[in-house]
């Protein structure tokens, strides 16, 4: 059976969405919406966004949503979940918010095994502010703060791999990519199930940002495939 064009839990009033053409957020959110529809949890789900482009999802869903500040989407999700343990709390952020300014909160939430689901869209730079270098920026990658290409000698930051050793044994950590909707849905479903079992979960979605990458469709796909060579998709902790 073919799926409808948009999930039922999407707020139709917010369309057309605020994301740039070709942005990976729209695809990620759409697939998240399908999972929420499938699990029939839209009325008991709370969606907490960060800032950065993720905040543009503040009215994407017809679901309780709250926006937080840069890096704090995990913290506000922790408070929500502690107050309303029966709800499904999804914390939605980008790589700048999650792996840079808010990494401390991801570490804290992961170590304490907070029963929240983090969905982190990784497009390898700070997109909303104009495409500056992030901890996820690839060596040599050209960004607005590294116009000649990043001189960073260190490898880009691997979030799920970093969190894996400090997580509770029941935590679920995975990386998927925005061009693989079946896997996105599968992992998000597992992540939400893991939250229902009382454990922490994080799904990183490797994504594209043609606007800040300054790439046309073909070069976007090329760079994306190149990134996938480093950012390996799959389950990093938990059941396959």
């Amino acid at each position, binding site marked *: 059976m073919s799926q409808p064009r948009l999930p039922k839990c999407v707020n139709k009033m917010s369309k057309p969405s605020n994301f740039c053409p070709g942005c990976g957020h729209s695809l990620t959110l759409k697939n998240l919406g399908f999972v929420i529809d499938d699990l029939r949890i839209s009325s008991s789900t709370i969606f907490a966004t960060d800032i950065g482009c993720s905040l543009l999802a503040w009215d994407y869903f017809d679901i309780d949503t709250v926006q937080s500040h840069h*890096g*704090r989407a995990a*913290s*506000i999700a922790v*408070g929500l979940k502690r107050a309303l343990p029966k709800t499904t709390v999804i914390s939605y952020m980008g790589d700048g918010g999650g792996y840079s300014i808010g990494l401390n909160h991801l570490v804290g939430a992961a170590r304490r095994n907070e029963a929240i689901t983090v969905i982190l869209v990784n497009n390898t730079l700070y997109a909303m502010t104009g495409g500056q270098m992030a901890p996820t920026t690839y060596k040599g990658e050209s960004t607005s703060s590294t116009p000649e290409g990043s001189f960073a000698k260190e490898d880009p930051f691997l979030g799920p791999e970093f969190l894996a050793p400090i997580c509770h044994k029941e935590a679920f950590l995975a990386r998927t990519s925005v061009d693989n909707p079946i896997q996105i849905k599968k992992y998000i479903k597992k992540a939400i199930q893991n939250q229902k079992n009382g454990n922490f979960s994080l799904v990183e979605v490797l994504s594209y940002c043609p606007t800040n990458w300054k790439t046309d469709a073909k070069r976007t796909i090329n760079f994306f495939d190149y990134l996938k060579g480093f950012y390996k998709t799959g389950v990093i902790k938990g059941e396959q």
Partner: protein
Amino acid sequence: MIFLQTEDEPAAGFGVLGAALGGKKSWTATAAAGHLLLQDAVVAAEAMRIPFVAYIGQRGGPSTGTVIYSQQELSIARDGGNGEGLRIVLGPSNLQELYDLTILAFDLAWRYHLPVFILGDGYLSKMTGEVDLSAKARVVKADPIVQNGKRVMNLRNCYSLEEEIARVLHRELKDYGSIAKEVEKSEVYKCTDAKIVVFAWGSVASATKEAVKKIRKDGHAVGLFRPITLKPFGATRAKQSVRNAKKILIVESAFGKFGRLVTEALFGISDIEVERLYKPAEGITPEEIEDKIRKML
């Protein structure tokens, strides 16, 4: 009560916000540089009108780790955000008030959906004394903001256009103005005939009142004006309290943070002499204040 040891102040602050959104009374406490970090969450509370309570135990700054005492965090509490500072700041002057105003803080935060600070200090945080706990707490119920059973909430704190945020601010400022009239609170002690009115707040006001009482006993017309809400600040009552005064004295354990509020409130009164007893980050005893007032008689 659930206690959660978080990794830092932003986590504590946003955790408090999350819990408040979920309909649970929640709060946090910090001081100094931690207070700066907490402001991140406070402006979110301000912007999205989420109840928020924080206790601040002011300590000596700009140092970190000078854990004893100060009144230097007044400006951060009042205006430490990147917005218009739409919050309520309460200044308890003794342990009893610390208890009573903490109850009030929860009531105000959940009544008006605003951030409320209980701006204590190292003395109030650490001292031991007698407190009457018999007063029944009358506090507004905490209803959930999200999952409220009525409608889906999409809360944001980001606007694309300056006109858009200006509209929101205009509405919020107007609302705050009417809230301010309801919550403004100050103690005016023997000011009616006072030739000298002393301005002080918090612990320092307790010491000041003691000094004022002593000097009154000798027949001198001295009074005390003490704001209990440091924000909103009762400027009208402050002005009224100096109607017959020739001099005022401002006493604080900071270098003019409170003094600037007072002089702003009294702006326009030109025939009054202003004296200051500023001791940044240091306690001020009743004896010192008494000495200072006596010199002004």
